[in-house]
């Protein structure tokens, strides 16, 4: 079980969180003008990187904030965490 540092609550067990997917995907500002393929990419297309991955987690059983986590998908090491909009704080250890 991962130990995730919530920027609002501190380190908490993974089972307090819900996974929210790739944090770098942004909703198109004007969906109406997005092409079918742009919209399709936003809805369905995700990278599956081997290594650092910036992702959203919801502290569902905690402060109810969505947070951003940079996690190494290979080692499960958590490299940094932070609020959705704002700087990530690098983590040491784990």
């Amino acid at each position, binding site marked *: 079980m*991962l*130990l995730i540092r919530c920027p609002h609550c501190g380190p908490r067990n993974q089972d307090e969180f819900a996974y*929210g997917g790739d944090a770098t995907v942004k909703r198109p500002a004007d969906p109406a003008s997005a092409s079918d393929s742009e919209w399709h990419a936003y*809805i369905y297309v995700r990278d599956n990187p081997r290594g650092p991955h910036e992702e959203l987690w919801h502290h569902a059983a905690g402060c109810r904030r969505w947070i951003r986590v940079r996690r190494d998908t290979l080692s*499960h090491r958590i490299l940094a965490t932070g609020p959705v909009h704002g700087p990530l704080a690098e983590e040491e250890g*784990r």
Partner: protein
Amino acid sequence: MNGQPFRNPSGGLIDRARPLSFTFNGRRHAGYAGDTLASALLANGVRLVARSFKYHRPRGIVGAGAEEPNALVQLREGAATEPDTRATQVELFDGLVAKSQNCWPSVGFDLGALAGLLASALPAGFYYKTFMWPASWWPTYEHHIRRIAGMGEAPRDRDPDRYDYRHAHCDVLVVGGGPAGLAAALAAGRTGARVILVDEGAALGGSLLGEQAVIDGRPALAWVEETVGALAAMPDVLLLRRATAFAYNDHDMLAIVERRFDHMASPPPFETRQRLWLVRAERVVLATGAIERPIVFAENDRPGVMLVSAARAYANRYAVRAGSRAVVFTNNDSAYGAALDLARAGIEVAAMVDVRPDGGEAARRARAAGIRVLAAHGVLAAHGGRSVEAVSVAPIDGTGRAAGRAERIDCDLVCLSGGWNPAIHLFSQSGGRARYEPAIAAFVPGTSVQAERSVGAARGSFALADALAEGLAAGATGAAEAGFGDGAVPPAPGIDRAVEAPMRPLWAVHGVGSKRAKRFVDFQNDVTAADIALAVREGYRSVEHVKRYTTLGMGTDQGKLGNIQGLAILSGLVGADIPAVGTTTFRPPYTPVAFGAIIGHATGADFDPVRRTPMYDWHVRRGAPFVNTGLWKRAQVFPRPGETVLETIGREARAVRTSVGFVDVSTLGKIDIQGGDAAELLDRLYINNWKKLAVGKARYGIMLREDGMVFDDGTTTRLAEDHFFMTTTTANAVRVMSMLEYVHQVHWPELEVHMTSVSEQWAGVAIAGPNARNVLSRLTSDIDVGNEALPYMGCAEGTVAGLPARVFRISFSGEMAYEVNVPSDYGAAIMDAIMAAGEPFDIIPYGTEALNVLRIEKGHFVVGPEADGRTTPDDLGLSGMVSKTKDFIGKRSLSRPALTDPERKQLVGLLTVDPGERIPRGAQIVEDPSHPLPCPMVGQVTSTCFSPNLGRSIALALVKRGRSRYGERLYAASPVAGRTVEVTVVHHVFIDPKGERLRV
């Protein structure tokens, strides 16, 4: 009972003042407190304890701990019976009952042993090759194979014992209570750090319990006692005995199973048998020791062949002679000390067979003690049947081939030491890669990935002095890293270091003997050296493939004894170095863990939390059966005496349409939304418009997922300009809340809005039917419930039955209806009040069944059956709700080609041609039921019921181009129900299509 012929009269760590009686395979035996089942069996001269998995060969005890591959027994009887327990780790208790598994009818006379006579017919991959054709017969073969090759019996009855969970945090977790682990715990504990020391045994001391080492000039056990005493006195040190750390998970969380009362016949009252600990540690010290390995030779599985360390432990710790006359076969120094211990215990050591040309100082001392040492020799074969009777010994060359005439030496005990494997299982689980260390011919921990350190034998440092020094250093350093102490390492106790001669790797001895002789690599799975050779001949090269083909290391012991021999034999056959051939990854659990411990208390009624509405007890008092909706318990029907369920449903549904009924709707999700941008947020979430909704009015809304599919629906009411009250479906209450938070926090944080779940703060009751207003008006004096003051989709706040209340004029049934919300503590009170006020109108409470019938009659889709994650608003006939003037979640998807396809399935109603015939649930809609299979399907039935108000069967369905098919004859085919029903397609609203009843 007998006199334990192989027990010495003195010595050992057993308590002769506490004799115990136990039964093995129906025979009573005696032992002592402090025994394991294995040591007690050996004390009684019981050597044949099991039959092997595939060939049903007689097998005896090989080890003295977790590595034991053979002595797996079925422990206890009845509901508490447990298969696959290792006799070497089962603590003896009075009245213990165990039996051999994998033999029928008895361990002495075993019909399956015929398989051994047919052994040449059972090579590696035999089952794959033979029984897979024809494939359809496999279940038949499997049934018989499983009967012969049983691995114990799972209990058939409910587990009578209880289990629990503990979560814990510590600064330094030490796994292993041997010398290195005790030293680490002591050094860490002295700094004031929170320390947990875990050991799988009942007594701490590890290898010291089975040896006769000296520390600081005293017996090592005195040091153990002193150290354990010091640790026990430290308030922040927790000693977990009888506890196995079986999994090293991510981020230094270890799973530990503590066998709290397995050493007793049954747990004391109110106690749990086992406890699962989940420990998150700042630093971890792995002092898990090492496991001795056997050497492969012909017939090496005869009972009486065991590890040197095991025979030594039985002699020293349990005062048991594992035999009378021993041959010790070694490739390293450690066996010599053991041989002297065996001799001291009264076992005649017939010969030390050392593969090395020169055993150095150790060999000289053995000779000085009168032991015959055969250098550069090997054991070619064991002889005997149910017990070893002799071995053939001959000079061998460097590759393990016989290089001279064989000599037969009579013995009933053969002790093997092929070197030691560090127990790197937890290290491997932590993500670390093992490194091959040629000096000890074993894999040792490589670079740490997590916050752990391996010390002592677990890292290949087999000398006691090294183990203590490494343990002290790791404990002090780990504590310092966790913020305790300065990292200064306490001085190590004094140890006399022996001069050691290097070990010489030897995995297998190649004799000349019979071709039919078997040379076992993996005892538990009956894998022989010949099987590995066959796999290589058939083209397997990767160790992972060879493992799976031969089943090497795939047993419950995960190849603790045989893996590296198998790897070495494979490397010899393919002509590559051992590290190039690779190692296998160890996976949890280190030793098998009972499901009960993993499940903990989450069983039966405690499997899941139960959510009860504030009216739960009220429903119970009226005898309502409950139905599970997620975690909620909802009243299903309110039966009257003599009614069938269908009659109850019909009565309740008719009452709502003809007079009045009321239903608990407290399970609906409720979200309070406030802020200047609350309406803006709703506009971006729902497919319809919200900004112009007047204060005091409710509106029905639908939310989509971003992919355009209907996600949830419900009514939301504007309580003030900047204050909305949203309802969601019961099932999606949690998901909608998360989605609101997601879109607000991730997409549009600039919106000034807050939301809070208030689902549990309000109890809700819907009063529905033509007399609903008459009932409600009797309950309130400050709310005008008239059609003008409180029209359809209106909302009012005031008091109902003297309780603070919100009243919403909304309807799910299609009748005139009011939903009354009161603070949840008043749930039962409002039910009583409504029941009393409705009496003149024959009011009845109704349950989820009638609720469902009423909504099907009204053609309301629900999330699940109709909105199944693949339906758009247009599919449900609701495209008119979709705003054309604003964006909302999922809108852009609605114009994607697949979502505008004219062939999409659309919501329709179905009537049976024969009004009384029921439409089967889950039926598929077909145009031509006589079409040959596969029959094209044009849709499916989503909800079906007998409508008591229409007096006929009706259904909702999703059908391709459904809205263009009104009046068309189709067929609802259910191969499951074995029926095909002729149906007519109609509009999905069966009752009051204009909605006039809602507005009266």
